[in-house]
């Protein structure tokens, strides 16, 4: 087999690992959170059981559900899968990295969100419309911050390609960049908002007036719900890996040898687990904020990303 074939095979395997490992991260987060809040914790692979249960269940579709409602779970899962394929998990320079740069990655998430909101409106329930409007409000504020982070990083790295940017950070070694520090915090805040975690949204609640993402998928059941939940778990993993890749890429494999790949797997697992600890601590010490304070939260994220951009111009390149 030639090297291109190996690369494509690795890309497929990496994407499969990505999708397969996502519920594991969700289970780990849930378990940590239970421990931290003195509750009895479910086992780490509980999300797999939940997904398997949902996949076996029959679906109940509303009588007025259109094709849009039925197609949305597949579109959401497909867009998330494509996004996952473009993010280097254990090895850089895979052929799939050329599919999408960071801007297209943001676009994939926007596509998934757009269809989720449409499907929520399609059924015509009050909760769906409310959730859709809230989700779009949050997205409209989070996306500029995310894009500014991307622009800041690509100004420094000279590329918008995620794989090349990771490679750049690896090669630069230890450089204290204030723009990266600000971008890291901005990206973390955006990730919290986009993956629906506390303090923006509470992933553990159903049927509350405060929910955002869950309100949109209230009408889904069975296979459809399994796909959407799986997609949101993959999305959390994508954001985690994105932070790891861009800011702490050490350990990721740069050539296709068994040793480097094994090290890459170990490194990304350890870093994702550590980031989950940070996320859980954050979720435990903070309370969910009122919906009307979310724009302030995201405004702060935008300010951080703007400061990252400004410091990258003012302090790092100079006049």
């Amino acid at each position, binding site marked *: 087999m030639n090297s291109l074939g190996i690369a494509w095979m690795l890309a497929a395997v990496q994407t499969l690992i990505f999708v397969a490992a996502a519920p594991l991260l969700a289970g780990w987060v849930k378990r940590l959170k239970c421990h931290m809040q003195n509750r009895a914790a479910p086992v780490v692979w509980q999300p797999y059981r939940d997904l398997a249960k949902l996949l076996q269940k029959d679906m109940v579709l509303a009588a007025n559900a259109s094709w849009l409602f039925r197609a949305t779970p597949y579109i959401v899962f497909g867009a998330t899968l494509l996004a996952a394929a473009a993010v280097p998990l254990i090895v850089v320079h895979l052929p799939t990295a050329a599919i999408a740069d960071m801007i297209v990655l943001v676009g994939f998430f926007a596509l998934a969100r757009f269809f989720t909101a449409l499907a929520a409106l399609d059924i015509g329930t009050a909760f769906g419309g409310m959730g859709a409007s809230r989700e779009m409000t949050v997205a409209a504020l989070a996306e500029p911050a995310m894009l500014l982070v991307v622009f800041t990083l690509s100004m420094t790295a000279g590329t918008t390609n995620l794989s090349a940017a990771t490679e750049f950070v690896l090669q*630069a070694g*230890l*450089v*204290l*960049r*204030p*723009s990266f*520090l*600000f971008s890291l915090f901005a990206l973390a805040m955006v990730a919290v908002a986009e993956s629906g975690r506390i303090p923006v949204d509470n992933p553990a609640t159903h049927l509350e007036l405060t929910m955002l993402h869950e309100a949109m998928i209230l009408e889904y059941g069975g296979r459809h719900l399994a796909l959407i939940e799986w997609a949101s778990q993959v999305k959390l993993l994508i954001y985690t890996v994105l932070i790891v890749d861009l800011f702490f890429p050490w350990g990721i494999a740069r050539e296709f040898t068994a040793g480097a790949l094994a090290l890459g797997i170990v490194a990304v697992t350890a870093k994702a687990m550590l980031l989950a600890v940070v996320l859980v601590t954050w979720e435990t010490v903070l309370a969910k904020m009122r919906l009307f304070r979310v*724009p*302030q939260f995201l*405004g*702060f994220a935008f*300010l951080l990303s*703007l*400061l990252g951009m*400004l*410091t990258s*111009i*003012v*302090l*790092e*390149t*100079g*006049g």
Partner: protein
Amino acid sequence: MELTSLGIYNQAIILFAALVLFTSFAMLAQTRIVQLIFTFAWQGLLLAVVTILVAMVSDHPHLYVSAALTLALKVVLIPWLLYRLSVRLNMNYEAEAIANPSLLLLGGAALVMFSYFIAVPVVHLSGLATRNTIAVSIAVELLGMLIMTTRKTAMAQVIGFMSMENGLFFAAVVSTYGMPLIVELGVAFDVMVASILFGVFFFHLRDSFDSLDVSHLNRLSETNDSLPLQEANGEERP
């Protein structure tokens, strides 16, 4: 100047300079008085760290004295004085309403851009490794002014004023490796005296208006009240 061409200590200077700028933004958005005082103390601490780093890199030992002065005055003494005052004036849990926080922060970002453009000629002339941070020091100064203009309470305005002084000190450290020691001692003494005088001013303000809202000072109530009287008297005058 590219960041990668600098040594690790110079990079640390730039990183801490960025953090000083961030504390200015944090003060701009901070509505609670006690947290505002703490953020101000943090800014002083970061400034002292920058000064120590500059002293190490540039081998100017008198900067250690400046750093020690900053640490003693702006991290310990003045925040402690202000905190005690806020407790005594019973305003340590008060929050001030800021009319449009997001717009304010964007205005702050615009000020950073503005100070970048005024600093560019200076940066071209300077040969110091810290020259990129001159723009940030000007921005800290302007942001202190923005804090003073957007706040109503005297306490927040005083903190904005002190933050402007921080910006001046910062500019002196990064553009010329500090002012002569005698000047710095004088300024430090002035700041200390100012903080005590401001305390007296707070008490007078509260005694006169029953609040620390300086917008009361805009209205010259005595003149307005006595105006009809004067007019009445004026009729009798020839």
